[in-house]
């Protein structure tokens, strides 16, 4: 259905268009849910008519068009909901003013409320945020996304603080809230006497946990500095263990009725089992995943799936034993990541990144919308005292907890937490959908509705009030923001240097601190683990080199995509050339300098030939459109630019050093990840040296229709260059026959020609090319 979302403009016409777009969407949704009714009636009618026909043996006409909605109902509805959620998300970003002020989560809840309201108004039953749906399908992608991309360094540096906040803080919240609730409930005038201590504690444990989904949704938009972000976020992840234990504990107790000291002790033991067990399960799956990725060099396409499936299995396995699924997922992601990233191709890495972001984005959107819908749908018991008390107590206990704990923690921290930091940590303790789902899971508890109402109110309060005001508060308090910057190689070098330095100094002092253990872990990792889990040569590659390679690759891709004729760091190529020159015999490795005029000429010739072929084909093809001459020129210019780029990259290839110089590793290069694009120039040197004057001998059967000027060709350069090298390696290895042409990439051919041209500028080259092109 075409939603008339026009171009972004601020005129009244376009906003009216958008509003009408939304209204149409909502109507559509309503129609879909209403059609459920229709279809069921339809099914009955069909049945009746079937009976009639059976009884009368009367031949039915062949149904040209029939309506069978039941058949596709479930996937249809699911897709419709997801589509609705995403269109809403799209809509918010088009409206400029609102998205700056109100965080997306609020808007989504409002939409959920609206949709829920509409559905209820037409008398249909609204879908509720089913706990199973939430815990099994909606939550894992978000947590995996968070865990896989968790910044490890700040996380481990602040691990102590995070753990204290997560464990002690949550316990404090739960008991304080529960206890105070009970105390107030005992007061006569509130007619809440039915709420006993255990129920209060159960309620406290549900409402006390900071929610990772809500925190992510809000904190991502305010770009706060890394320390605070990791503190609040880490806490929200790690408090899952506490929540799980407390929840199950109190639920059991409310069913059992009495509590003994032994039970309490078992509860503590249970906590350790749940958290450590979860981490263990996750780590095991993580290692399995890393090990599997070692062997995927031949089947790159399914690499991302391994990551996703192993992680999901880790989550589910932990849930089987009532261990902490979230911690298991985080452990799996953290464990897997360094090894998997060393093994998989660049494309798989991008795929994993984008799929995770995509799924977590969809999940988050759906969660908030469903939260809104469930609010409208669910049965509510409103009790002013209870609800207001809950909100107040949550705030108070959070603030008290944070302040108290920080006072203790600061005695052990090197970089202390200031009052501003404490305020943000306290204010950022948002509650979210996990609390709601846990409340929903309560089975036949007589206070369930009351609890649910209170939980929803707290969630709304934290998400709306705290979520909306945190951004202006951050600006007001001038809290340090995240510095958007890329890591430079200097930072990397110096950080490693400082690590070594500090380890040494700790050794001198005789103090086994942070750095000492980190160093030991690194050595263990390098000596044993990496050898098992990383394929091939990458296992001995030091981190600095991988980092450097990644940076170079990124820069090259950026240059190619921007299509500019900007030079690659000329200092780099010229200096490395200087370095290489004295060492190596002039074996054709070094491109002789040719004059600018000559270069121009060569380019003109190439261009001319390619143009000729294109023209020729045009006259053949019957389905050809009249090509706009302007467009032709444009693509010409782009083509030329990209050719210049290719040239420069070629010169870069030839000057950046290879890992090894012998032949055998060249074979390896073919199958290795695209990272190794740079280390395969040995073959190229042989190519030009070998074949002056030899005609390429290719049949002109190639399809120059796919002009190298297309962006595909250039972005395929990554892929094609290993293949190109593969061809050249074959040639160099003594394959003297001109190959019968595979329908091969023209840029492959062109690269070769370029290198030949540049090393060997003779007029007879032209004839060769002419001959090959036009024959």
């Amino acid at each position, binding site marked *: 259905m075409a939603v008339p979302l026009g171009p972004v403009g601020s005129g009244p016409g376009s906003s009216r268009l958008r509003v009408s777009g939304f209204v149409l969407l909502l109507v559509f949704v309503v129609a879909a849910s209403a059609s459920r009714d229709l279809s069921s009636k339809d099914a009955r009618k069909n049945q009746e008519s079937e009976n009639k026909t059976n009884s009368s043996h009367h031949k039915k006409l062949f149904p040209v068009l029939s309506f069978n909605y039941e058949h596709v109902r479930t996937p249809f509805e699911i897709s419709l909901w997801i589509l609705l959620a995403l269109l809403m998300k799209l809509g918010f970003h088009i409206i400029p003013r609102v998205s700056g002020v109100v965080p997306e989560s609020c808007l989504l809840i409002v939409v959920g409320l609206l949709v829920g309201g509409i559905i209820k108004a037409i008398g249909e039953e609204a879908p509720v945020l089913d706990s199973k749906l939430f815990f099994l399908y909606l939550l894992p992608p978000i947590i995996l996304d968070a865990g896989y991309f968790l910044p490890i360094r700040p996380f481990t540096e602040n691990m102590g603080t995070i753990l204290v906040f997560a464990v002690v803080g949550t316990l404090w919240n739960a008991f304080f809230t529960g206890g105070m609730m009970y105390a107030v409930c005992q007061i006569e005038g509130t007619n809440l006497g039915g709420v006993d201590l255990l129920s209060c504690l159960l309620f406290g444990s549900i409402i006390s946990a900071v929610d990772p989904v809500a925190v992510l949704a809000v904190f991502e938009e305010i770009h706060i500095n890394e320390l605070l972000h990791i503190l609040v976020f880490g806490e929200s992840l790690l408090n899952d263990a506490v929540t799980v234990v407390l929840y199950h504990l109190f639920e059991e107790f409310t069913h059992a009725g009495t509590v003994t000291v032994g039970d309490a002790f078992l509860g503590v033991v249970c906590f350790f089992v749940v958290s450590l067990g979860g981490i263990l399960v996750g780590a095991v799956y993580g290692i399995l995943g890393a090990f599997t990725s070692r062997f995927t060099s031949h089947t790159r396409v399914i690499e991302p799936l391994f990551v996703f499936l192993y992680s999901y299995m880790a989550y589910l396995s932990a849930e089987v034993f009532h261990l902490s699924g979230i911690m298991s997922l985080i452990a799996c992601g953290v464990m897997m990541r360094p090894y998997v990233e060393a093994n998989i191709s660049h494309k798989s890495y991008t795929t994993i990144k984008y799929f995770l972001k995509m799924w977590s984005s969809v999940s988050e959107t759906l969660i908030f919308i469903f939260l809104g819908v469930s609010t409208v749908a669910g049965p509510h018991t409103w009790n002013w005292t209870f609800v207001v008390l809950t909100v107040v107590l949550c705030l108070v206990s959070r603030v008290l907890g944070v302040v108290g704990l920080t006072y203790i923690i600061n005695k052990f921290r090197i970089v202390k937490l200031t009052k501003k930091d404490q305020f943000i940590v306290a204010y950022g303790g948002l509650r979210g959908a996990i609390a709601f789902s846990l409340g929903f899971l309560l089975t036949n508890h007589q206070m369930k509705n009351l609890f649910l109402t209170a939980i929803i109110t707290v969630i709304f309060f934290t998400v709306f009030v705290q979520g909306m005001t945190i951004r202006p508060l951050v600006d007001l308090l001038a809290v340090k923001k995240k510095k958007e910057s890329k890591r430079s190689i200097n930072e990397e070098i110096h950080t490693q240097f400082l690590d070594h330095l500090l380890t040494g100094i700790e050794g001198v002092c005789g103090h086994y601190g942070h750095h000492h253990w980190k160093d030991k872990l690194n050595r263990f990792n390098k000596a044993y683990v990496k050898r098992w889990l990383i394929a091939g040569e990458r296992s001995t590659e030091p981190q600095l080199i991988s980092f450097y390679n990644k940076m170079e690759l990124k820069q090259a891709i950026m240059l190619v995509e921007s299509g500019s004729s900007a030079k690659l760091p000329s*200092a780099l190529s010229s200096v490395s050339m200087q370095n290489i020159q004295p060492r190596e015999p002039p074996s054709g490795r070094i491109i002789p300098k040719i004059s600018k005029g000559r270069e121009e000429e060569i380019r003109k010739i190439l261009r001319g030939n390619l143009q000729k072929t294109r023209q020729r084909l045009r006259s053949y093809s019957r389905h050809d459109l009249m090509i706009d001459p302007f467009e032709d020129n444009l693509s010409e210019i782009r083509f030329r630019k990209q050719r210049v780029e290719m040239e420069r990259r070629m010169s870069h290839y030839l000057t950046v050093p290879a890992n090894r110089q012998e032949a055998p590793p060249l074979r390896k290069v073919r199958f290795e990840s695209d990272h190794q694009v740079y280390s395969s120039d040995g073959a190229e040197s042989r190519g030009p040296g070998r074949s002056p004057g030899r005609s390429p001998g290719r049949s002109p059967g190639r399809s120059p229709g796919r002009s190298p000027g297309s962006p595909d060709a250039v972005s395929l350069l990554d892929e094609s260059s290993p293949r190109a090298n593969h061809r050249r390696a074959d040639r160099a290895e003594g394959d003297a026959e001109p190959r019968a042409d595979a329908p091969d990439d023209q840029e492959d051919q062109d690269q070769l020609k370029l290198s030949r041209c540049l090393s060997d500028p003779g007029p007879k080259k032209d004839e060769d090319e002419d001959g090959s092109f036009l024959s």
Partner: protein
Amino acid sequence: MGSSSSALTRVPQAEQLMQETGFSPAHIVRLFDRFEFLDKERRGELRPQDFGAVKELAMNPIGDRIIGAFFPPGQETVDFPSFVRVLARFRPVDKNRSRDPTQPEPVNSRTGKLKFAFQLYDQDRDGKISRAELLQVLRAMLGMQVTEEQLQSIADRAIQEADLDQDDAISFEEFRKSLEKVNIDHKMSIRFLR
């Protein structure tokens, strides 16, 4: 550890050291114990060989540089006060230090720490990290696992990124600038020394 005041009397120049470096008495005593542990022959001063007893330094790629940092240029031995002064740089930064412009900046401030690190790179003490010096450090850290050309490329790129005045070397200011995003206070402090 017994009463610290009596233990403190063993330590030479304890009062002056405490004032200069800001260490507490307990720390001074602890460092003195460590000093005596390293100084097996009880000579009252340490030589480079004594540092060899520390296992971690032997395995450390820049271990020799660290040892060298303890000995001022030309001297073969280091006594306890100098030992403490070097280690004082790794004390965590005092957040609420009064910013008195007349007082010299304490040795464990961010600048002091960076200067120490810079001197470890800059062995010939000319105030700049030249390409050769950077290469030496890289070679030490990366060892046998990379080829010479890769080292050269990395060094080139590092200098290119950091070198703002185009003199093909990294001065202290450039060094400081390239590390401005790193939390040096956290990174170069040892918790023990508080």
